[in-house]
């Protein structure tokens, strides 16, 4: 095969054994890479019903179809999969930087890590050889310190490291896996799965060729794609970056503020992308083989947090800014830096701190619980300290490290009403009360409260649909988005460049040029649908039902947005019924959200039909 290595590395940390497996062209053509490989490997290798921290839960790394090539912007991408300790469902996250390209150059497309090492270890995969090395000196170190220590120990400053910090070691359910300092496989708590295996990091050195089927054809088409990637389609990401959303989302009444109490932030000017770029951004740099470069690096300029460095995106800025009522950019930069250092999801962590602030103001968390912190909305210093406490499981941080769903159960006193999560995963930066298409996308997202599996807010915010109205037709829109995103996350294409691709045609063309496997647009769309259905089956097998799709946080159902452009909006249970019925019908699923036999046969998933049969009424 071209590009694909065809190799899977299986590592059992309990007994310290490794073996190489192989996959064939049929697997490649049906599942592409990334999402497809991850979901397929997980459903095939996880014993149903295991606890996420059971050694049998496999931690799976996957590369994309075009990883390691010049195709924009795909070279450095990789995905991580496991059963999620946050949701108990599909755990899935993607990262970029340099690590993904190194994985393929080191000779593997898939790593399946099972078991639990008796003592802390890290893996070193060096051009097809594998070492399980002691991490005794690394345990307790930050992600940044551990990366440097590994490079020093192995004597090579080009080693790429993907690993956990204190949060992962402490089984914080929001723990992420950090690589190349500023990049994270961020969501669904996969860092805690890594920690549960006593695995500190996976280090790579790869020097092998990544060959492609048609070098001349590919380079010619990539020239064109490079031009598009430098054009208007990506202008936002190259200039202000996603923080440009701050002002527009506030004006649209869709900016989650003070734990979803409001949907606009009165001090949004202080945390705008415009101000960030003018005063704090010191460099915009790029991932491996990226013609766009979007990595906005900021430095805190003054006060207690002077010198803190982080990569800035809208989502974490929202979470540690308006969501916590904080308008001090220096504190926001520091909080995100802390997330990178401790290895905790910078979106989820901000949502948790905002939740804790509301608990504090309602007297459900006391100053003593908070270790002496005055955890009011707007207190940036307390916010930063809470990130550390959560990672170290100190004081109330021990409970908050469980995520808002579990924390609300422990705290009680009605806290569940404003615990903003879906299926256990904290919500992201779009107030879905006034974005009904997005509300559906979030509700059915296979990894819980998440915008990245569908991007369906686009329909609402662009005015292509009535954002305040629930209609059955939104189901087909969300399905189309999900299947396309599944393909994007399989290639794995950076979502910031999604608009340089003219639909499935362009992606199929690049796929064939790179791999030599014939691929048509329709076929590729079907691959996306196959992945969406297989992921649904995985979640069904882990116990998910229609009820889990219907149940949004009580605040989304009951508390209208108090002011601004979306004033009065809620998502009622009736809205949800309309949206879900429409979505299930579009998908060819029954009214409980279970794929039909016909649909599974059509997608070549007949082998998994017993999962659906088991739950069908």
């Amino acid at each position, binding site marked *: 095969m071209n590009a694909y290595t065809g190799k899977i590395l299986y590592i059992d940390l309990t007994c310290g054994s490794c073996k190489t497996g192989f996959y064939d062209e049929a697997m490649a053509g049906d599942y592409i890479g990334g999402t497809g490989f991850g979901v397929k490997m997980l459903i095939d290798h996880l014993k149903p019903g295991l606890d996420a921290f059971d050694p049998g839960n496999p931690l799976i790394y996957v590369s994309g179809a075009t990883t390691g090539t*010049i195709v924009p912007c795909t070279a450095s991408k990789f995905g991580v999969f496991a059963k999620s300790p946050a949701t108990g469902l599909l755990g899935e996250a993607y990262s970029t930087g340099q690590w993904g390209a190194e994985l393929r150059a080191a000779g593997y497309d898939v790593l399946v890590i099972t078991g639990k090492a008796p003592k802390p270890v890290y893996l070193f995969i060096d051009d097809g050889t594998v070492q399980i090395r002691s991490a005794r000196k690394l345990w307790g170190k930050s992600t940044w310190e551990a990366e440097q220590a590994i490079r020093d120990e192995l004597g090579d400053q080009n080693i790429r490291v993907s690993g956990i910090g204190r949060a992962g070691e402490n089984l914080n359910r929001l723990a992420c896996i950090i690589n190349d300092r*500023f990049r994270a496989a961020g969501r669904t708590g996969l860092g805690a799965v890594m920690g549960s295996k006593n695995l500190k990091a996976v280090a790579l050195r790869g*020097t092998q*060729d990544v060959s492609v089927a048609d*070098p001349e054809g590919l380079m010619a088409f990539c020239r064109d794609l490079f031009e598009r990637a430098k054009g208007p389609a990506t202008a936002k990401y190259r200039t202000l970056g996603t923080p440009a959303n701050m002002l527009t989302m506030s004006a649209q009444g869709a900016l989650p503020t003070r734990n979803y109490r409001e949907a606009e932030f009165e001090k949004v000017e202080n945390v705008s992308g415009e101000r960030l770029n003018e005063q704090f951004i010191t460099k915009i740099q*790029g991932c*491996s083989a990226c013609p766009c*470069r979007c990595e906005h*690096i900021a430095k805190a300029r003054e006060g207690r947090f002077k010198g803190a460095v982080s990569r800035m995106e809208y989502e974490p800025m929202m979470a540690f800014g308006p969501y916590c009522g904080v308008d001090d950019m220096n504190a926001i930069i520091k909080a995100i830096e802390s997330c990178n250092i401790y290895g905790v999801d910078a979106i989820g962590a901000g949502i948790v701190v905002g939740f804790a602030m509301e608990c504090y103001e309602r007297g459900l968390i006391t100053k003593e619980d908070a270790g002496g912190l005055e955890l009011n909305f707007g207190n940036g210093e307390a916010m930063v300290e809470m990130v550390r406490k959560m990672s170290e499981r100190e004081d109330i941080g021990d409970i908050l490290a469980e995520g808002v769903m579990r924390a609300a159960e422990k705290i009680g006193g009605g806290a569940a009403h404003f615990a903003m999560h879906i299926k256990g995963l904290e919500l992201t930066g779009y107030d879905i009360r006034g974005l009904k298409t997005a509300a559906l996308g979030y509700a059915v997202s296979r990894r819980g409260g998440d915008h990245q599996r569908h991007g369906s807010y686009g329909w609402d915010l662009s005015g292509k649909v009535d954002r305040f109205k629930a209609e059955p037709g939104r189901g087909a829109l969300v399905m189309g988005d999900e299947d396309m995103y599944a393909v994007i996350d399989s290639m794995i294409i950076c979502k910031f460049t999604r608009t340089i691709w003219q639909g499935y045609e362009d992606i199929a063309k690049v796929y064939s040029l790179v791999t030599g496997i014939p691929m048509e647009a329709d076929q590729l769309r079907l691959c996306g649908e196959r992945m969406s259905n297989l992921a649904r089956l995985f979640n069904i097998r882990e116990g998910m039902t229609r009820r889990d799709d219907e149940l949004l946080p009580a605040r989304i159902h009951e508390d209208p947005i108090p002011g601004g452009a979306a004033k009065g909006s809620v998502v009622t249970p009736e809205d949800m019924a309309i949206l879900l019925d429409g979505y299930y019908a579009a998908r060819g699923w029954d009214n409980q959200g279970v794929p039909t036999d016909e649909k599974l046969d059509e997608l070549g998933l007949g082998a998994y039909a017993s999962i659906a049969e088991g739950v069908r009424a």
Partner: protein
Amino acid sequence: MNNKYKFVSVDIGKCVGCRVCEYACSMEKFKAFNPAKSRIRVVRLYPHTNAALNCRMCQDAPCVIACPRKALTQSQENGVIHVDDKLCDGCGWCVKACEFGAIALDPKPTVCICDLCEKREGGPTCVEWCPEKALELTTTDGLSQKARIEAVEKLAEAME
């Protein structure tokens, strides 16, 4: 030092560390993507200093002088240093002699040095592919001229 040969020079202010040059270089030379075989190499110092480094075509190049096996020869015409793969055993003396870190061992191991894509129509592929236009084919004198013009532009701006 070099004062007449052309070489590929990086503008550190513009370089974003994307390594597109490495991908393009390895494709040109080996018909495969492999940054570990590229003749131009990108260094990123955290958090955000980036630079692509390659041969600066020094006159009386120290690497050529350092090679104990006479595996390296320099073209008098364009300054390019050619490596005789049969003679080079990857001992690394030339690597040490180069002050720019421009010589790398490709995994064979023999050394690889930028040859300005001398057989390629259109010149160095890295310059063509750099998305930031951070690379240019220039001479020491060309850089010097550019620096002077920039300095005067700044002056002019200040005087306005």
